[in-house]
């Protein structure tokens, strides 16, 4: 294969990586009503990972951990000073109140699981 083609493809791939992982903002799941929002913890991702919630109001997130790896055992909302232990298979309710509009990240301890509360 022509070296230039490979180089262009490589640079294109780097561009795609930057766009896909850093620049693109996927749509958020919007919380409907006061009921808990279920978040599945499995295979290295929170599903849904991006959730839109009203700012200034308490919201209940129900974590359902399916991943037995210890990486998944805690959910941390660093900027809200909230944390929870997630037992395997048992739904765990976490009530958080994002004080003002903005993005509030939640992660596992190693920050491999990553989610975002988008408060509006």
């Amino acid at each position: 294969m022509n070296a230039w083609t490979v180089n262009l493809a490589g640079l294109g791939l780097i561009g795609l990586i930057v766009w896909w992982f850093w620049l693109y903002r996927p749509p958020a799941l919007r919380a409907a009503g006061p009921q808990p929002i279920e978040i599945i913890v499995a295979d290295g991702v929170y599903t849904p990972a991006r959730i839109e919630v009203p700012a200034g109001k308490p919201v209940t997130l129900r974590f359902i951990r399916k991943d037995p790896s210890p990486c998944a055992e805690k959910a941390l909302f660093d900027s809200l000073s909230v944390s929870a232990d997630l037992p395997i298979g048992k739904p765990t309710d976490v009530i958080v109140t994002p004080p003002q509009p903005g993005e509030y990240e939640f992660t596992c301890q190693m920050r491999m699981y990553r989610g975002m509360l988008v408060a509006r």
Partner: protein
Amino acid sequence: MTAAIPAEASTHRLSISGMSCAGCVATVENALKNVPGVIESTVNFAEHTATVRGSVDAKLLIAAVTASGYSAAELRGLEDESEKEAAELAHYRSLMRKFIAAGVVGLPLMLAEPLGIMPMLHSPSGRIFWLAVGAVTLWVLIYAGGHFFRGAWKSFRAHNANMDTLIALGTGAAWVYSILVVLFPDLVPSLARHAYFEAAAIIIALINLGQALEMRARGKTSEAIKRLIGLQPKTARVIRDGRELDIPISEVGLDETIRVRPGEKIPVDGVIIEGHSSVDESMLTGEPMPVEKKAGDEVVGATFNKSGSFLFQAKHIGADTALARIIEMVRRAQSTKPAIGRLADKISAVFVPSVLIISVFTFLVWNNFGPEPRLSFSLVATMTVLIIACPCALGLATPISIMVGVGKAAEYGILIRNGEALQQAGKLTTIVLDKTGTVTEGRPTVTALLPASGWDEQKLLTLAASIETGSEHPLAEAIVSAAKAKGIKLSAVSGFEAITGHGVSATIDGSKVLFGNARLMAKHKIDLGNLPKRAKELAAQAQTPMFLAVGDSVAGIVSVADPVKPDSKAAIARLHAIGLKVVMITGDNRATADAVARAVGVDEVMAEVLPGDKAAKVSELQARGEIVGMVGDGINDAPALAQADVGYAIGTGTDVAIESADVTLMRGSLHGVADAIAISRATVRNIKQNLFGAFIYNVLGIPIAAGALYPFTGLLLNPIIAGAAMAMSSVTVVSNANRLRWFQSGQART
């Protein structure tokens, strides 16, 4: 996108206290039904329980019952770790099975290759052999590495990338390239026709092994929590309808009467209503001496009843017990991070996509400038970069040490509120100790009785205690207690008068009695003889001497002191040994404060400080550039504790709800402060080691994997070595954190 997600209904059982009639049942039921999310609620008056079904948090239900004028607590025991342990063991075994399966395939391939006994790729029989190897390796990738590929794909779809992404790309690329070489050799330059099936299999094996070992090591990091949960007894002996029944602890309701016999653990928190005993609370507070308990005294669940038998009434159950709150506080603290870990968090957030970019860049550089076979070199270097990068070690470095450090502190009766307090404690330059109750016992006692000629100790104490019965002065209580302890019968007192700043006067058995300081005696022209000299000596020993006069003549001196805790001096020496300046702060007069200071060896005394001014004194020290830790009782000293860089509430027993304190020391000894600082420093040191190791590993490992040394030494890392290094890096971080478990108090050495 809007979605209405159905919430799962769950059932909560509450114990309700304070219901006396059927009307109460209706009130509580209505209160519960009005909580949003409640589907059904039933209150059982006979059992004083409520069963509630709905999608609602138990805390909201308890708040609703409390708001309606009753008390409630959830009926449940502490969740034990057995389910978690069983799940972790199953996961560990699954990882080990995957390790063995991948190893069994990869190892013979790896060993056979240098021996040259493998069939050639381009021969017809060789191609069939390698196709079979490719199929078996594909099975390895699916069975032993499927979870990496699943995780990578799901993360990718969520615009996220994690460790799974790196492993899946590294091993996946190796397999795809190898199968292309086997199936379509013409696509690949002849020099680059090499299969990497064994690398894919061995890397999968090693990563599984690394995760299994990490899991084992991580299990040990939560030992402190397991130990605390293990303290809870399984059953309680309640008295219902006059009968004693052994019931599970999760069924014990509020206000129930419970019997505890000698040698048994106390099941929940409550108040003794009959009997007395001595109770060992050391498992929670670290305080080695048993505590005497009688009717009216509080007892704490999970502590050990030593000698007597008693009945007590349950006041806190389930998640409200001191043990449950201690566990909750430790768990919460274990999840927090000090500022030192934030840089690692920021790097973690961009780490994996950055490694992906570096890997593409590595491929391009080798493909443009590398020697032949370029494609092989490009592929090996790219694969090695993907495999060696370890975001986990970086992510784990801080939290895993915090988990072990905070847990270890809890074993010493030290509850650290968060990781930030831990980091700040490591930077302290000055420690301020409140005198009363911190350096001293906080319980004044009669320390000397010096009768004048013609009097004896008994008569002196009788009159002093009799006259002080009407006084509210803290020293008066010490004198009355001393008389009671000696079984002295007190005399009737008339005409009691408190003379502010001087003492008291009254008439006892027809005689005028004066009790107070030298000024009181001078005012009434009482000749004190040589007693003032003795009084001065006592004051120099941090005692408060008081004169007693009957009629016109002196009867003697009663001296009271708040004794220094026996181990305060040794603990202060430990604080000095770790380089801290020790300041004592007190509202007492200068002479007493200086005497205490001399006895324990502090560096500076702040005497005659009003309680409200203690926080200002802490500010003054901070303005001088000191980083100040303040040790006080957590209630009277709350503003000073809050002002300090780290506030230590001391001697709280099992009362863990000291909001003003960053660190709660459940035992009264100042050694707890030295231990808390030593554990904090050890933990911060451990975090630094972990962060340094994780940074250096990645900073050196990734360029070496990319081939940075190749132009100079001809060294290009084997992807299998990269896999082994990556697998061991997280294990090393966790194992280093586990070293904190061997921390020992310096108390024994002083």
